């Protein structure tokens, strides 16, 4: 069937010699989609950050006023601080739990397999669904407070400015720990059992083995997972939007939410674009920094090790 054309072998020999491979035209559909809806908007957001636009009319040049507003507006400055605090606290909560759960799931005992099936369940829910469910569960009148007669659990979880921030960090961890534990489980399973056995024969305890064998062996996964966690926390939107919409007051108005509310609720698209540019720059900087810090291109090296 392949030999049906007489000229085919000749043509292919020429191709072999020049090594051109399949036509670059096949790249066109992917490039066009990507350029129009990802690259152009990326440039567009930078341009719009120097424009006044209410979302309906024609944008007009605004000079640096959006940027001045962004860096002097107390709400936005507060949003930056909240985003920073949330990123750090989410990381400190999620990373240890994910690693421990991942190591636990990689174990061979039968009950661990059963646990693993259940640990996965939060991944079945969209962020919007999780937000709605927890909003009901944390309702001060009909939720958790009513389930137990314990004063500690009877709080207005989402209504108190002191509590709500930490409640969000908990819910975010609930959402994302399953995903990261899956990454760690896969990584831990790759460690040759001989390494653990050797450590055991040398008299290393469980804790020592964890720090001296397991952790160094999964370091690429730690870097990947950390990058995803940190860059991800810059972009939490759905969950916070559905659960608190930034409130009470501005207690949970993190940067992506501040961008949305400034743009699509206050119709200051220019100022919102300036916030968006900050998000892009910080996100890219964190990714690059973590890559540099690890000394490798994590995506590539992961595959080489496979």
């Amino acid at each position, binding site marked *: 069937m392949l030999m049906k054309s007489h000229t085919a072998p000749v043509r292919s020999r020429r191709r072999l010699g020049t090594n051109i491979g399949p036509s670059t035209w096949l790249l066109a559909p992917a490039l066009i989609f990507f350029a129009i809806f990802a690259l152009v908007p990326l440039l567009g957001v930078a341009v719009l950050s120097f424009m006044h636009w209410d979302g309906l009319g024609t944008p007009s040049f605004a000079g640096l006023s959006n940027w001045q507003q962004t860096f002097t507006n107390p709400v936005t400055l507060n949003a930056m601080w909240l985003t920073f605090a949330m990123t750090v606290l989410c990381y400190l909560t999620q990373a240890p739990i994910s690693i421990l759960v991942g190591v636990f799931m990689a174990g061979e005992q039968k009950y661990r397999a059963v646990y693993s099936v259940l640990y996965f369940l939060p991944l079945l829910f969209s962020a919007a669904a999780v937000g709605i*469910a927890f909003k009901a569960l944390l309702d001060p009148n009909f939720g958790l407070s009513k389930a137990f007669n314990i004063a500690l659990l009877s709080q207005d979880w989402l209504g108190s400015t002191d509590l709500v921030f930490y409640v969000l960090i908990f819910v975010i961890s609930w959402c994302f720990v399953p995903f990261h534990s899956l990454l760690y489980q896969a990584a831990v399973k790759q460690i040759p059992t001989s390494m653990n056995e050797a450590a*055991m*024969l040398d008299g290393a305890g469980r804790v020592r083995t964890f720090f001296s064998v397991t952790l160094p062996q999964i370091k690429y996964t730690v870097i990947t997972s950390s990058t995803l966690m940190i860059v991800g926390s810059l972009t939490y939107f759905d969950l916070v939007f559905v659960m608190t919409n930034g409130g009470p007051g501005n207690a949970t108005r993190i940067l992506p939410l501040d961008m949305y509310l400034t743009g699509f609720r206050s119709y200051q698209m220019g100022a919102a674009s300036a916030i968006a540019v900050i998000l892009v720059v910080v996100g890219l900087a964190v990714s690059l920094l973590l890559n540099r810090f690890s000394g490798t291109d994590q995506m590539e090296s992961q595959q080489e090790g496979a």
Partner: protein
Amino acid sequence: MKSQIKTGYAPNVPGGLAATFWLLVTVVPIYYIVVTSLKPRQEYFGSNPLAWPQNLTFEAYGRVLENDFALYFFNSALVTVVSVGVVLIISLLASYVIVRNRGAFAKFSHRLFLLGIAIPIQATIIPVYYMIVKMGLYDSLLALILPSIAFAIPISVLILTNFLRDVPSSLYEAMTLDGASHWQMFRLLVLPLSKPAIMAVGIYNALQVWNGFLFPLVLTQSSEVRVLPLSLWTYQGEFAVDIPAVLAAVVLSCVPLLAAYIVGRRQLVAGLTAGFSK
């Protein structure tokens, strides 16, 4: 001595207890969602929220289904299937060229796609909104499909190129010697060999599109083009005090994923972690 090596450490009791604690943290909210969705409205206000329903009923599900749930479900399915279908085709073609074409342009394109992985979707929503309005696509399903495709391309190309690189070049050479055209190689070699990667990429993107919230929130308005995650949010407003119905909608929204999880847990897990783990 030998038996000691085999049995390893003694059972990890503190580890097991901590794991059980996290299990409860994980499962109790889900138990709450299911149990509440099965309660009559009056019972929701009266009973302990974590108690098993005394008068178990599916009425809440009925109220959700009466409220156009099927339409929203269909919209979500349509957007997901079309987006993922297009993404798979164009990303696979692009990956094939990137792996097999040694030209500078292919290399440049690859770099460009890799850069795209770091672009946060949220940050580009304002220009995307502007373009969709200018194109006259605002408040249509196409408004959701087009950007969804664009933002799924980088990760898809990354995973597929990584996978295609592992196809031994001797296979391509053998086919070239047999006189196969590039198109034949694509159809007879690349396509069948990359099936597992295509599955993983497809599942990963399907989840992203199915659960997407920001594009529908910003790019659509009317209920005719509403998709599931957005409908959950609007149910919350419409049903306000009917929490059992709101949570029934939450349960219904993850039925397809639950079905996928039961049927093909391995593939689903592989798809979720595609490109991020070895």
